[in-house]
């Protein structure tokens, strides 16, 4: 929470990128505390690793400070506050987090948990749900990764390569 607030207020973009990394690491720790180890693994690897490298590369290609906004943010602030208040009011109707008879825990989850050892036979139930019971969703996720990569390569992959490029910082 503190990290997120600091992120919004800072204007020096290098510090913002570092705070993103800290935020991801703290989220990964939170997931471990909540017993979601696979999610924590992915969050730590992607958010605190590769994502920071990409953001730093983007920083190297653009400027290092955020520009001052031209308009005062009063109207957007009011809109955001009203929407946020409506959403929080909506969450009052939700059941308590983690109760055993929540709809999220009684719909198909017991069937997956009970049937996974006989039907699929691998010890890691997260993988069995991800790759077998919900394999179609994972296909969609992989397609999203593919599309994102193709989009980025279209945007910034078109530079003509110079012959004899050795990759060091040569003075231009």
């Amino acid at each position: 929470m503190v990290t997120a607030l600091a992120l919004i207020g800072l204007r020096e973009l290098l510090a913002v990128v570092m705070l993103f990394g800290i935020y991801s690491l703290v989220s990964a720790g939170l997931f471990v505390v909540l017993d979601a180890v696979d999610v924590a693994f992915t969050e730590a690897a992607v958010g605190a690793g590769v994502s920071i490298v990409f953001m730093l590369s983007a920083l190297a290609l653009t400027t290092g400070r955020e520009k001052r906004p031209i308009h005062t943010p009063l109207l957007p602030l009011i809109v955001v506050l009203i929407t946020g208040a409506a959403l929080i009011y909506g969450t009052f109707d939700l059941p308590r987090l983690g109760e055993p008879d929540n709809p999220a825990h009684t719909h198909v989850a017991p069937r997956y948990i009970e049937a996974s050892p006989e039907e699929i036979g691998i010890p890691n139930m997260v993988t069995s749900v991800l790759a077998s019971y919900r394999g179609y969703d994972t296909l969609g996720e992989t397609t999203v990764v593919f599309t994102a990569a193709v989009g980025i390569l279209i945007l910034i992959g078109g530079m003509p390569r110079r012959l004899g490029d050795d990759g060091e910082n040569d003075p231009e």
Partner: protein
Amino acid sequence: MKRQPVLRVCSKLLLPWLLLFALYVQFHGEYGPGGGFQAGVIFAAGVILYTLVFGLADARQAIPPRLARVGIALGLLLYIGVGMCCLLLGGHFLDYDVLAADPVAGQYRGIFLVELGVGITVASAMISIFFAFAERRR
């Protein structure tokens, strides 16, 4: 950066273990935390470390960018291919039971191939994106 001895030696020592760990996470995703996404990202992180220390030219020799770009599509093709194979063998799309004589063995085979596809796509995507960023000059 390859003239700095500490960076060069340390990254050379670390890199085989990083790539081996990525393969371990990929193929032991059924027994512990892990799977295709995590393994792909760790593998890409290893390649990025090599690129940062030894320069883009050496990294391009190790992993040709054309190969990385092909890999993005190859993993997805493998995933859909497994699904199509299940269709052709008589089951539903992505119904791994029909892939072997024993349904449980079929599930194991299907999950193995599918996670491999995901890992290949994620690793190739990250590597291609990083190469695209790194080849650009301001």
